[in-house]
C-alpha cells in the first residue's frame, strides 16, 4: 500500500531523514517509535506530502505520491496532526462534517450525514455533537478531531490513516479506546501509520514497529523481533528490563535503574 524507497530529506546540510525504506500493506498497523527530534514528525510530513523528499520515492497504492492531485490525495489518506487549536468556535457536528469536504461540492448529501453520525458513534462523541468545540476538554477535542479525520476516509476502504501521537492528552481509558479503534480500522483493511511514545502500546497494537534515531532506521519488524533491550537503548538511550507477560506474545518493557 505504502512503499517508502530510500528517502532522504535534508534542510541545508542537516539530514532529518536519511536513507529510509519500509513498506506497509493494507490491513497493517505500523507504529513509529523514537526519541524527540528523531525525525518522526518529519517522516509523517513526508508521507502526507506536506514536504517532498530530496532523494528517493514514496508510492501510495502503486502510484507515485507526487502524481496525485490534492483532492484525489485527500480521498486516499487522512491525517491527524498534533496541533489542533481553533480560534473561531465551531459546533462539533460542523467540525466533523468538515472531514467530508473532499467528498461533496457545496452541500453535504444524506450519505455524508450518515457517515458523520456513524463516526461519532464509533469514537463515542455523539453526546457532544451540539457542543461548541472550544468549550470541550483537551481529550474531547482530540476525539472530535479524530472523528473528523476518520470521516474523511470512512467510505474509502483502500485509504491510509496517519496518526501523529493520537493518544496525547487522553486519559488511560481513551488512550486504550483510540488504539483499539486504530487496530479495528487496520483489521478493516486500512493502512494505519501511527507515531507513538508508549512502547508497550506499540507492541500491543501494532503489526510492525519502526524505530527511528537521527532520521535513520534502528530497527524494523514485528514487535517480537524488534523489542529488545539493545534496540531500545540504541533508540532512546535508556536502560530497560523486559518482562514476559501471560497472554501476550511480546514482553513488557519497564524502566530499569535510573542512569547516573
Amino acid at each position, binding site marked *: 500500500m505504502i512503499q517508502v524507497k530510500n528517502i532522504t530529506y535534508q534542510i541545508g546540510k542537516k539530514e532529518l531523514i536519511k536513507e529510509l525504506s519500509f513498506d506497509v500493506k493494507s490491513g497493517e498497523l505500523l507504529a513509529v517509535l523514537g526519541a524527540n527530534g528523531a525525525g518522526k514528525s518529519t517522516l509523517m510530513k513526508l508521507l*502526507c506530502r*506536506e514536504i517532498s523528499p530530496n532523494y528517493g520515492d514514496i508510492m501510495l497504492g502503486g502510484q507515485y505520491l507526487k502524481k496525485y492531485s*490534492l*483532492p*484525489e*490525495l*485527500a*480521498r486516499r*489518506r*487522512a*491525517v491527524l*496532526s498534533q*496541533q*489542533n*487549536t*481553533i*480560534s*473561531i*468556535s*465551531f*459546533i462539533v457536528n*460542523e*467540525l466533523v462534517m*468538515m*472531514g467530508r*469536504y*473532499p467528498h461533496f461540492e*457545496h452541500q453535504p448529501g444524506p450519505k455524508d450525514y450518515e457517515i458523520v453520525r456513524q463516526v461519532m458513534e464509533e469514537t463515542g462523541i455523539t453526546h457532544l455533537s451540539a457542543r*461548541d468545540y472550544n*468549550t470541550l476538554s483537551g481529550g474531547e477535542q482530540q476525539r472530535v478531531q479524530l472523528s*473528523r479525520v476518520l470521516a*474523511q476516509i470512512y467510505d474509502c476502504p483502500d485509504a491510509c490513516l496517519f496518526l501523529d501521537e493520537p493518544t496525547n492528552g487522553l486519559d488511560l481509558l481513551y488512550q486504550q479506546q483510540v488504539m483499539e479503534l486504530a487496530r479495528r480500522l487496520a483489521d478493516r483493511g486500512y493502512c494505519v501509520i501511527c507515531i507513538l511514545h508508549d512502547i508497550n502500546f506499540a507492541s500491543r497494537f501494532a503489526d510492525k514497529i519502526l524505530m527511528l534515531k537521527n532520521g535513520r532506521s534502528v530497527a524494523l519488524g514485528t514487535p517480537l523481533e524488534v523489542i529488545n533491550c539493545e534496540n531500545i537503548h540504541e533508540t532512546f538511550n535508556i536502560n530497560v528490563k523486559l518482562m514476559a507477560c501471560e497472554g501476550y506474545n511480546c514482553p513488557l518493557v519497564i524502566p530499569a535503574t535510573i542512569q547516573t
Partner: protein
Amino acid sequence: MLLILLLVVVVISSCVGAVAITVPEFLSIIANKTGISQTMGFKPQQAAVLMNIRLPRVVLGVLIGAGLGISGAAIQGLFRNPLAEPGLIGISAGATLCAVLVIVLEVGFFTKLGGVIGFYAISLAAFTGACVTTFIVYRMSTRHGKTEITTLLLSGIAINSLALGFVGLLTYMATNEQLPVITFWSLGSLGGASWETVSGLLPFIMIPVVILPFLAKSLNALTLGDAQAFHMGINVVNMKRIIIVLATMAVGASVAVAGVIGFIGLIIPHILRMTFTADNRLVVPGSAILGAALLTAADMVARTIVAPAELPIGILTALIGTPVFMYIIVTERNKNKL
C-alpha cells in the same frame, strides 16, 4: 430572512430625507421608471430626488456595506482570528495615506492632470494605496510560499502606524482649505454618491461578493490550520492568494469611494457567528447582506440626524458599533461561563 431585512431597509432609507416620499409613492416611481405601470402617483420633484440623489446613495451604501462585510468575513476566516479586520492588516491605512497624499499635493501635481483623472484622483489613489499595502504586507509575511499569519498581523500593525504617521505629517503640512477635506474623507462618508461612482464601484464589489461564497468551504477548512486544510485536499497557497486579492479588491474600492468606515467588517461576521453558526457557508454570504443592510441604515441616520447638515458615517458606525460590540462580547462571555 436577511434579504427581506435588506429590502425593507433599502425602501425605508430611500423614502426618508429632506423631500419626504411615502412607500406607495416609492413603489409608484419605481414601477413607472421600469415601465411596469403608466400611472403617476407622485410629484416629478420626488421622482427626481429619488432617482438622482437618494437611490444612487442607497445603492452605494448597499454595495459598500456588502463589500466591507464580506471582506471582513473572508479575512477573519483567512487569519483564523475573529478579531482580524481590513483595517488591522493595513489595507485601509494604506488607502488613507495615498488619498491624503493626493489631497495635499493636489495643487502642485494633480490639477495639471485635470479632467476625468483629476475628478477621480482621490479614489484612484486610495485604491492604489490599498493594493500596494496589501502587496507589501503579503510579501513581508510570505516565505517559501507560506503565509505566516502572525507575521502578517505584525506587518499590518507596522504598516498601519507608518501610514498613520505619514498621514499625521501630511495633515500638519496641509493648508487650511485642505484640512476639512482630509478630515471628512478619513471619517468616511457616502456623500459623493452618483450613478457614476456606483457603476465604477460595482465590478469591484460584485466580483468578490459572487466568488467568495464559493470559497466558504475552503475558508472553513483553513480555520482548522494550514496543514489540516492541506490534508483535506486544499491548495492552501493559492487559496490564500485568491482570498487576499478578492478581499482587498472590495475594501480598496470601498475606501476609495467612501473613505474609512470602520467596524462593519469586524462586527457583522461576529453577529452572524454568535446568532447562527460559525459555518462560513452562512457567514460569508450573510455578511454581505447584513453589512449592506446595516450600512444603508447607518447612512440614513447619518444624513438625517443633524439635517440639513450631515454626520460622517465613520463616526456613526464607531459610536453605535462599539457599544453593540462590547455588549456582544460581554453576553458571549457570560454564556460561556454556564
